[in-house]
């Protein structure tokens, strides 16, 4: 399988091939190439609805993760017994929300989506940021992942700051 990429919105012009390529590099760095995952790009209306249903927050956000394995120890690669369990889960990218943020910060959309996806994969692997300690642990992981990404691709990505993301794992 691999990465199932879906674009369900028409607000933001998306480069699917570029997003997939970046996600593949991230999967390699995380060490989860064997695991399937879904990346679904949605607009503000849809991500707000999902946020409301699953987190009782009636507002759009940048990313929502739905891990296949719940309660993983942060960063632990799941131990898989059967083929169908090579699944990490799904990440919904609020691309319209991210685009609006990029306009404010003059950031490149696809670079921002890569950073947000890295954040989403951290959540699929058990990382949280509900406490200060958890946030620090997660940000450390993200910094490592993105520095490796930058080394491999020549990019200059930086982790999300506390202000820029509202998502918590549902």
């Amino acid at each position: 399988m691999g990465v199932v990429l879906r674009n369900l919105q028409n607000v933001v012009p998306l480069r699917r091939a570029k997003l997939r390529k970046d996600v593949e590099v991230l999967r390699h760095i995380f060490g989860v190439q064997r695991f399937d995952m879904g990346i679904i790009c949605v607009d503000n209306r849809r991500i707000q609805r999902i946020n409301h249903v699953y987190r009782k927050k009636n507002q759009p956000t940048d990313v929502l993760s739905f891990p296949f394995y719940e309660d993983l120890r942060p960063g632990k690669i799941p131990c898989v017994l059967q083929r169908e369990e090579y699944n990490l889960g799904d990440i919904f990218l609020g691309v319209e929300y991210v685009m609006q943020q990029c306009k404010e910060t003059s950031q490149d959309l696809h670079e921002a989506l890569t950073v947000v996806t890295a954040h989403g994969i951290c959540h699929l692997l058990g990382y949280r940021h509900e406490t200060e300690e958890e946030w620090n642990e997660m940000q450390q992981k993200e910094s490592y992942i993105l520095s490796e990404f930058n080394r491999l691709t020549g990019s200059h990505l930086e982790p999300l700051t506390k202000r820029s993301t509202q998502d918590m794992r549902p």
Partner: protein
Amino acid sequence: MLKSVSRAVQLAARLSFSRSFWSLSSSGAASGSRPRLLTATRALPTLSCGCGSLHTEGDKAFAEFLTDEIKEEKKIQKNKSLPKMSGGWELELNGTEAKLIRSLSGEKVTITFNVNNSIPPQLEEDPEHAQKSPEDEPEIVSTPNFVVEVTKPGVKSSLVFDCHFPEDETGHGEGEEESDIFAIREVSFQPEGDVEWKETSYTLNTDSLDWALYDHLMDFLADRGVDNTFADELTELSTALEHQEYIKFLEDLSTFVKCK
């Protein structure tokens, strides 16, 4: 022995058959009238008319029904004129077939679709909601398969994409849809301008295609204006055209059926 037995059986069967008919035809003795089952030919309930065609009571009822139906359909017609596509697409119509044409830096992009059989069946999922009021009826949307032809100047073959609107994986309107708005099914090089599909040209089927290649093909189309916005507008255009053709068909049918 066997032959005579079978012949006897056949004779007995025929006798009982005719006996039943005899008793049936006799049953009218009490009522005073004999029903005519076998003697009279079936009389068709015709209306007198001078046009020379057959006109029955059924036709009259049908015509009345159609008059009401046409009135109702025109009442709910969302677009009296066809909606315009953004992006400078030129529309050509030939009955139920539509072509959208656009030129982009010397390249010609043609989208062809047909509104026949373009409305997916709407399955009733919840039996409790079977008796819906007209306001609750799901909207009828036409999602036709469409073909995208990209022709570069000086190149004899066009790159042809057979595209469709996948049915939602989670059903109609319930839950979160997780299919792409539209998808590519097949890709092939075809001689430019030819109506007939060249079967000997290699046809790439996307069912088991490398997903990175698929994404590049989708990006290729998006760069030529065939993206999710286009797909949404196409369904609006197709829905309006289908409805228009349906009403026209009802009107033609009414004309055909009516007594002049």
